[in-house]
């Protein structure tokens, strides 16, 4: 199939992009999800505006406690260590296992979050890491940012410009595991864990809806099975089993 007709322009101005989005344009960064959607005519916007030339969205910086990645940073920039990491090579390791290198060369971290595919690596891992989505007007905890599968809380014309991710270290450890039919495919089971001292934050992704976040008493190796059964009662036995194995293996992968 070929895409339905649309106009295309690139902008270097965040304001211009925002204005276009308010008027119904679809923003495109790496296009690794939107491209296929256009081709399959699942998305039929009249106008598409490319934002990867906006300088403000391509920067990366760090503070003592956080890493801030521009929304248009590509997966391969993260994979190759060209931007700051949160520790233990956690971000490069996540990035290195996203799809294929050709996808990583163009696909962006911000694009992945805005697409909000429940099976995407960044959606689950950054939820676990307590990352925040930054727009020109506000900072949004990712748990509020995602409002459903393929849905975010961004207002019309509001653009995700950067992601702020707390660093590991001290008593903070991160673990991640995903199961795919083969390298590069979308995962069918996925778990990420942020352990702070004795407290765990477990996120289980690659399910029908937005990834599930477990904290406190629910987020223990001994209680997570019951918690998952309670929170996702419709899950079939095999999927539940796979997700719990993913959690187990994410615990085994914990690193500071």
């Amino acid at each position: 199939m070929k895409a339905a007709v649309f106009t295309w322009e690139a902008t270097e101005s965040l304001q211009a992009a925002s204005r276009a989005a308010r008027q119904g344009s679809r923003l495109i960064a790496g296009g690794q999800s939107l491209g296929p959607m256009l081709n399959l005519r699942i998305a039929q916007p009249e106008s598409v505006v490319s934002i990867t030339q906006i300088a403000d969205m391509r920067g990366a910086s760090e503070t003592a406690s956080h890493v801030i990645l521009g929304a248009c940073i590509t997966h391969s920039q993260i994979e190759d260590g060209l931007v700051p990491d949160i520790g233990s090579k956690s971000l490069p390791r996540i990035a290195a296992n996203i799809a294929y290198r050709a996808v990583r060369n163009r696909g962006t971290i911000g694009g992945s979050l805005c697409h909000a595919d429940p099976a995407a690596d960044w959606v689950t891992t950054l939820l676990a890491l307590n990352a925040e989505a930054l727009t020109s007007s506000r900072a949004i905890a990712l748990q509020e940012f995602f409002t459903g599968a393929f849905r975010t809380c961004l207002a019309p014309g509001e653009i995700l410009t950067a992601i702020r991710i707390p660093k590991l270290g001290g008593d903070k450890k991160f673990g991640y595991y995903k199961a795919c039919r083969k390298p590069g495919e979308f995962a069918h089971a996925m778990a990420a864990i942020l352990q702070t001292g004795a407290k765990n934050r477990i996120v289980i992704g690659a399910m029908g809806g937005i990834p599930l976040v477990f904290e406190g008493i629910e987020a223990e190796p001994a209680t997570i099975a019951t918690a998952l059964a309670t929170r996702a009662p419709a899950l079939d036995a095999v999927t539940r089993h796979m997700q719990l194995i993913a959690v187990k293996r994410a615990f085994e992968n914990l690193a500071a």
Partner: protein
Amino acid sequence: MDLAQAELVEKGGVGARVIRKEDDRFLRGRGEYVGDIKLPAMQELAFVRSPVAHARIRAIIKPEGFEGRVFIAADLAGVKPITAISGLPGFKASSQPILAFEKIRHVGEAVAVCIAATRAEAEDIAALVELDLEELPAISNMLAARAPGSPLVHEAWGDNVFLETRVNQNFEAAAANAAIVIHKHLRTARQCMSPLEGRGVVAVWDRRLDQLLLHTSTQMPHIIRTGIAECLGLPEDSVRISAPDVGGGFGYKGILLPEEVCAGFLARHLGHPVRWIEDRREQLTGNANCREHDYELTAYADHDGTLLALDAQATVDAGAYSLYPFSACLEAAQIASILPGPYRMNGYRCTTWSAATNKPGILPYRGVARAGVCYAMEFLMDAIAAATGIRPEEVRRKNLVPPEAMPFDNITAKHFDSGDYPEALRRAVAAIDLPAVRARQATATGAVKIGVGLAIFCEQGAHGTSVYAGWGIPMVPGFEQATVRLTPDGGLEVRVGIQSHGQGLETTLAQVANEILGIPIARIKIVHGDTAITPYSTGTWGSRCMVMAGGAVATACRELSRRIAPIGAHLMQVPVAEVIVADGFVTAGPRRVAIAEVARTWFRRPQDLPEGSSGGGLEITAGYKPVRDSGTFSYAAHAVVVSVDTEMGEVKILDYAICEDGGTLVNPMIVEGQLIGGVAQGIGTALYEAMAFDENAQPLASTLADYTLPGATEVPVLRIEHMETPSPYSFFGQKGIGEGGAIGPPAAIANAVNDALRPLGVEISELPITPRVILEALLRQK
């Protein structure tokens, strides 16, 4: 490469690992495919395809303002439907419309075609076409389709069975006193053959020649010409089929397409070229499938592991239409005739059904029914091993046809031409160091289990007239032809009616010609894939080209050498009886004259030849059939070691060894390439590929994100060992070997997975073996 092989490559003949001639353009991205053909005034086609599986068509409404750009069945004046009839008794014929009218029988069936300057604009128009459909209950399960009361795909039949076949060879007597009786129910998934290049066609009406020219991505140009001529009501000389580079076929391009007929009609009707390029969505959801089998098997054996008799009921889901030329029944007919595999048995009974459902029709995919049949038979061998406590390799050895029995006529009258099957098995088992793997298996702890799987099979290739006449399908191969012609400067042009789409035939056929005449490989050009310039052939399928076209090229070259000899003799002024033609020269004792000089003389200096001699010229078309046309039987043993993660259900291939025998190998490197590619596809059958349909016969995958194909990371480094037992019936002793790689892996891998799971009391009896299938079985067991 050893010295002998290095010399052979330098010389170039049969047996040399010559680098593929065609790779120079392919590896540089300079192939010329249908999609590369651009013609002035060419317009693009997009088909409107049915969103439902079974419906009566009330109306198809063309969008206002686009009436001239949309064509429906009623607009295709004089165009006939496609019928592929089998002559087997009881066969029920289907009529496959070029564009559906009255009724729709599967999702993706074309109901209208739209034309525009670009594909995107044609799709815009297609999206505006309205279908007024009365949806009917659909049937997507082949066993349910066979049951009384099922919705009917073709009402006039009264049931959903294209064909039922029964064979019984001494079954009751042989099974009567068996000590061990084993029953298994096995299933294989429906697959979508997925060559890198999909199908495509560019149709042009040539006013000067009054001829339709179809550039189409096909494996069989001459067969397509016949089919197109019949559907469009044209004489065959008014149809020319030209296949440019074809990016993989595997059976998917061994078909006459409604899209080709449509494009041909429109090019003639509209007076300008039109093009249709299949996209991945059409390939996955609208066009032909393959491989879906259901087996009820009962093996009767002795305590010592001897297989006494086999009883089988096999159903094949043949989809909605019998496809041209192979028909809906080839697959099931093949199951009945080759299920016994390379084994001896005294009794055999088999009933098959080719069931019609509301799914696309089926085509014979690489290996045809053999991938399923080998899986079934090898599954039973392991079951006998488990029941008797005898090692799997020993059970097989006991039942294989032994070398001293060759040639051997098996229980279904297949004539195994030559080989040492037990030796191939022994070598494959030795290659994986079975005792060491068993030791690892015994000491493995934790969630990851180790398993070993074996498979051995033989592959009938290049079977000819006597075999196909029995099936009575629209295409029966007879003599294979080749044209060879010297060029005035001493080069050789070889014209063959088969089509090379990955097999490396531009290299191997040049090696054959080089073997006979000695003309350097670089000066031999293979011309193929065009009905206007090649002799008739049924095309490339059934592992037939190296035997059939190879034999034809050798025969034609030999006849050409008989035309070369007297000219060379005259130039040397010696009697023709004293000369031999070989290695690029005509030689008489110490004297010789180059074939190039012979060519130069005949074409450019005829005054140097005696008046009235050599009028026949230096261009020959010769026909060839093997000594026997019952086929060559290559064979192979596959041995595989896997690990199974019993927590996540994942299977990893740890080691994969093959010992194969393709008779005399024309180019061992190309044979190895064929094996590697075939195994990749076999791994897909074993572990990844399934086109599932829901109860409304809706396909559940429409992109390669949902239809999982194996990729580079899923294909292990294979260890390949060759045996070379010549066939007594072919020109050089060569055997067809193109499909074998795809046949063994489902059986070997499934056996390995079950070997790993056996201690847990779990057996997987369906393909593909996905993590979900494994975990469902394990969780059921808990």
